């Protein structure tokens, strides 16, 4: 077991299997808001669902509608269990803040530099604490 300390940008707890993507992702266009499935055929992980996973990514890119997709994922119960980003993205965080205002379940948003993602092995069980500690 290992504990990795990340910066908790939006606090919360969550647990699930790690889904580590090497490429940047755009929530609008790459993620189906109604299922959580990755829909972009150019992505290696095309067809995989991010629902319930501890999603680890270098960064997000693309559309400013990412916040709307995140909100719909949270509202429908198809969001990841936690989101760990190499570089923080305010657009996706905004979707989580709005969900909180709506009284819907939210997820922790963590910042962890990419060079420390290595220990978050794809498929491993992981849990996130309120303080931003990731246990794998």
């Amino acid at each position, binding site marked *: 077991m290992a504990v990795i300390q990340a910066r908790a940008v939006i606090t919360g707890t969550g647990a699930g299997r790690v889904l580590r993507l090497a490429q940047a992702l755009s929530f609008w266009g790459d993620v189906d808001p109604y299922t959580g499935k990755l829909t972009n055929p150019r992505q290696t992980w095309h067809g995989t669902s991010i629902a319930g996973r501890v999603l680890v990514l270098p960064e997000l890119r693309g559309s*400013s*509608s*990412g916040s709307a997709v995140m*909100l719909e994922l949270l509202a429908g119960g198809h969001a990841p269990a936690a989101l760990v980003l190499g570089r923080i993205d*305010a657009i996706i*965080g*905004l*979707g989580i*803040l*709005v969900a909180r205002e709506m009284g819907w379940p939210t997820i922790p948003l963590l910042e962890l530099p990419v060079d420390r993602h290595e220990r978050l092995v794809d498929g491993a069980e992981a849990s996130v604490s309120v303080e931003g500690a990731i246990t794998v």
Partner: protein
Amino acid sequence: MLHLTADDRSLLDGAQGAATAMAMRILVGTAEMLGADKLIDIASVHVDGCLYHGDSGTLFAEKLVNAGGQVRVPTTLNVGALDLVHGDRVKVTPARYDMIRRMMAAYQKLGCQPSWTCAPYQAGHRPAQGQDVAWGESNAIAFCNSVLGARTDRYGDFLDICAALTGRAPHTGFHKPENRRARIVVDASGLPAALTAEDSFYPVLGTWLGATCGATVAAIDGLPGPISEDRLKAVGAAGASAGAVGLFHIVGVTPEAPSLAAALAGHAPEQTIRLTPAMLRQARDRLSTGATVAGQPIDAVAIGSPHLSEAEFDALRDLLRGRQVAVPFYACTGRHAMTAIERSGTRVVLDAAGIIVIADTCVVVTPIMKPGGGLLMTNSGKFAHYAPGTVGYDVVYGSMADCVESAVAGRLAREESLWR
């Protein structure tokens, strides 16, 4: 560290009601994530969050309505997911139709103007140079910053309405003068005049810019001016879809670039790129995903991303010369231009030619086109970028004249000589 004023705190405490307090909490949370030092007053807002991506967005807008929300600054609305003028254009289930309709109604109840256009800057929403605003929709952001010289950063959906309800926005990104100067110089002086004289050059220029410079601000030098606003909107829209272009300068044309030195704000460029026809050819090729064999059948044509202006409709009418189109030909616009072409008589001519005018929305954001895919032709860099993913059609890029000739024949006809 985010510093809030006494007024900001009173909004947070509910002095202006529950909806404003909720908007302020979202705004403050986002400003903290962005690392903003303060919030600033904004003069106007363009809301992109009114496009339906699921019921959650409808419920959010209705929560603000039920809590008594009213915008504090003039606010326009981007496209919705319905054509409210032509009721049968959008093909969705009755349940979804109802949720979209509710969302559009909620934004109007919040006091937003029902402009339903991605070209608000051609519908009378024109902030002054140097003014801080909060605009959504990538092409509108690029136009606002670059062509109007007003200042907006690129925010996510929902922050726009929160800015409108509070009159405040995070002080980050393009609100700060130091982030507006050009870092890259693009020397376009070597391009043939015949190329830069063509409408179809500008979306290609934007595509190249987005793919090459992304979010880094560039100054394009050596393009003959003046350049029409329709051409500038095409540069921004293509740039913002091929890359994260939020601001570009064209020396001698855009307001913050009266000279190259002004665009660079006295600094040396970090990089200079000499633009060649070959680079543009490559960018043009990238806009087409389908085979570009002359004479092959096409299934549809879509233009109007960003929404067509009255001048663009007039150009379409003149290119048609009374002929009929042989494939579905969608022309997307807002009511500002639709009303103008109805008044001028152009609409009747276009209807007779078989042109399908779409208002309030567009074909890549909501189901309008026949499902099942096929080959779509467009003169829009933005449609070319998004249509394969959102409507499942292959695309071929061409000029408006190419689109008209192909639509009349039902087969691909492109003028290639400029690009050889």
